[in-house]
């Protein structure tokens, strides 16, 4: 967190005003291609236990090392074997994701991480955000990508469904709209009628003053400007009528807003959504309906299934790619609290109409042998096989049409990771 703050100090100083006048925004959005491709980044916060999501159900060590947390082989949703011949199955509650897998529109990328994985939530999140394990401060990888787009950028070029801007979206030059609730994204007034109109005009004028000698005030002014400039288009998203019922929880509602933004043609390039509770140190309970991990899987499955089907019905599936990540995976052996502690490599998911579905990478062998090359930390952790930056690189190059070497500051392209 210290690093993030240290960065922001510079970020504020460097913040430049790059908004177009509101009147031109709709044109700008169209020019940037309202029907072009978008990326939805899904952050599973807390450190997702990949071994409970994608289960190596024929590995005896999985059962011996997780006496209370292992999912019975008969319960998993089998998805075949990976290139190493390891049989794998999805968590029993991921029935909708299993359907998407069967449609070959879900890619499961195994053992993604980096060397000496941080076991700190905050440090780990910062590293996944900057895409730089040796420097967790600085702009985010998504923010750096957005900064390569030709200016001026529409304020809705990125749409964050959470309250504060995630580190991955931070940029010195691009402001991100944060829209935790579409209906709350409005300009209220203590007055009505023409007086309210006058007030809105006054607020817009007030926000247009950006004091150069007060960068902190300038920073907040730009936030007000972006808010005022996007009110009407976000309000239009509020009238979106989905083709399926989304879950009423925050995750489901955030996904519905994203689908609405796509359907209304906001021109957004990157959406950010997150769902939390993955820090399952104790009573993780992967098997009973009220269990903590089971409920996480239900939330994940129901939200993503509704989103997928809605986009499919709307004819929007081919222009969208969803990519999930978590700051780390969890330890292989369960702890004494029937939970799992902070680990390292885990599973990423890619979902979309253009995804080449299937299993990518190989599962670890969980046999507790110090010589086992798929494990680290005295066999406690899953050793990474695919650098997370290779996954980012594929998305940047093959999906967003960017230059991953420039955005990531190095060549992380890896053959074989052809999920999109």
């Amino acid at each position, binding site marked *: 967190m210290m690093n993030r703050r240290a960065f922001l100090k510079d970020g504020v100083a460097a913040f430049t005003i790059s908004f177009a006048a509101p009147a031109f925004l709709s044109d700008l959005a169209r020019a940037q291609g309202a029907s072009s491709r978008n990326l939805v980044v899904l952050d599973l916060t807390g450190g997702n236990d990949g071994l409970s999501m994608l289960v190596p159900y024929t590995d005896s060590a999985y059962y011996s090392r997780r006496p209370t947390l292992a999912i019975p082989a008969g319960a998993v949703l089998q998805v075949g074997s990976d290139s190493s011949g390891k049989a794998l199955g999805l968590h029993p509650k991921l029935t909708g994701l299993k359907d998407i897998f069967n449609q070959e529109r879900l890619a499961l990328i195994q053992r993604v991480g980096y060397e000496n994985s941080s076991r700190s939530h905050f440090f780990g999140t910062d590293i996944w955000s900057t895409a730089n394990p040796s420097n967790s401060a600085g702009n985010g990888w998504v923010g750096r990508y957005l900064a390569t787009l030709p200016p001026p950028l529409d304020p809705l070029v990125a749409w964050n469904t959470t309250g504060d801007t995630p580190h991955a979206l931070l940029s010195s030059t691009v402001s991100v709209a944060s829209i935790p609730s579409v209906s709350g994204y409005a300009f209220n007034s203590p007055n009505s009628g023409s007086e309210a109109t006058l007030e809105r005009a006054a607020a817009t004028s007030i926000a247009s003053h950006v004091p150069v000698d007060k960068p902190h005030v300038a920073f907040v002014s730009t936030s*007000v400007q972006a808010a005022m400039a996007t009110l009407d288009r976000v309000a239009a998203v509020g009238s979106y009528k989905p083709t399926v019922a989304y879950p009423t929880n925050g995750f489901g509602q955030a996904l519905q807003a994203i689908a609405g933004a796509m359907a209304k043609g906001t021109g957004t390039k990157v959406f950010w959504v997150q769902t939390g509770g993955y820090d399952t140190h104790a009573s993780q309970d992967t098997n009973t309906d009220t269990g903590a991990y089971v409920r996480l899987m239900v939330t994940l499955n129901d939200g993503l299934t509704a989103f997928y089907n809605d986009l499919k019905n709307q004819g929007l599936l081919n222009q969208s790619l969803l990519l999930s990540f978590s700051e780390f995976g969890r330890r292989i052996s369960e702890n004494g609290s029937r939970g799992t502690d902070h680990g390292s490599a885990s599973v990423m998911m890619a979902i979309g109409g253009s995804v080449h579905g299937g299993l990518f990478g190989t599962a670890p062998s969980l046999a507790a042998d110090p010589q086992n090359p798929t494990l680290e930390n005295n066999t406690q952790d899953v050793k990474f096989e695919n650098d997370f930056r290779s996954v980012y690189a594929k998305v940047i190059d093959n999906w967003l049409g960017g230059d991953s070497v420039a955005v990531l500051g190095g060549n992380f392209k890896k053959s074989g990771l052809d999920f999109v």
Partner: protein
Amino acid sequence: MADGDRLLGHLLRRAGFGASSAELAAYSTLSYSQAVDRVVNYEQIPDTVDSNIGKPGFVGTTSRGAFSPNTVADDARQRWLFRMVHSDRPLQEKMTLFWHNYFATGLSKVTGQVKNPNGTRLMAAKASEDPARQRGQIELLRDGAVGNFRDLLVAVAQDPAMLIWLDGDTNTKSKPQENFGRELMELFTRGVGFYTEDDVYAAARVFTGWNLKPGDNNDSSSSYSFVYNANQHETSAKTFSFPIYSDGSRTIQARSASAGMQDGVDLINALAMHPETAKRLATKLYGFFVSETATPDPNLINDLATTYLQNGTVIKPVLQRLFTSPQFQDPAIFFTRYAWPVEFVVRSIKETGWAGFSLGTSLSPLASMGQELLEPPDVAGWSLGPTWFSTGAMLARMNFGSALAANQKFNLAAAAVPSRSSSRAVVDYVVGRLTVDLPSDVYNDLVAYAASGSWTGSDAQLQTKAPGLVHLVVGSAAYQFV
């Protein structure tokens, strides 16, 4: 406004939540150093604020049924906000907020384990009002707000809500649980980079047996307390990468199970007195009271860290030192600190007025601004500074200003009557009432807004323009700084 009054206003915004005009008047007879003394040595002022809840003349609360701040989370939040608005000990509430962010514990996980109302009790119950004299974590932080940090660490390590939040309740001999030991070093004391993974494993073993004696989750009068389970303590020696004892020894020697609780006390004693902890804490306090974005003056940090260590980890002298430092009193830092949502909400209530306003109205907006009390997003607390100011969160602030101004429109209009001679006079009245470093072009916009339409100065016009102006100022970028 005189320079002395400006400095006083600055002190009360930073060390408290701003001042109503009556509070400012009460302080204005004091010199600055006397004012700092009064703020810091608050124990001499009676703690009577809670007795005013529900009385006329104070901000209101809204609850379903009887107001029950020891057992209902939204009522607990309102009690705390009430204290922030009306306490005569503003630093106590401010430091409680600081510690709540520092030891960030989330009610939902606690409630998930002990159900409600016990979850709320463990977070917020006032011992004197609880059937089992259970003291909630917020009350613990409030009692020790400017006290000894080492003692606070021990108390927090044994706090039932913390034992649940960081899983200390499951830390046993056969399966040491890392969560608390890791965060103790990463977030509560030394910080990232000053401990190793092996230190985490050792710390987990140190705290084996520091468990929770659970109450009955279905009984709202049962007691939850810390217990040292000697038979769950792992007794072997634990070695760290940094000194534990004053002789430089890095090893906590093996102890008998019955004496093993001392392991944790030894580790906390060492961590509390470590220079890195002193610097980290000094930097955190600098961030909270001076700036979360500026690079602190290393001399000031060293000075604060030294004060902390020389006073045996007592916080009060550190704050006294900070508030009387030239860096704190520098007019260049006035109105430059990004206000946290609760700071913004409380200050706008104090300055706009509260007669007929209920704090219940502020709870949902606070969540939209990104700060739901008792529910920090994770163990590292809230993301501070500019990260509060996303577009959605900024709209939530503007809309709170709108709701407050609408609620206060008759009070504001009545107060503006002496200024009804011109639209500009009303602007001046509003800008004088709300403390803000307003750029001149913003002032001109306010004048233009107030002057739109023909000016009559009628009651109806005052009831429109006065709240409109309050809304515009409270929702302006400049007002988001303290």
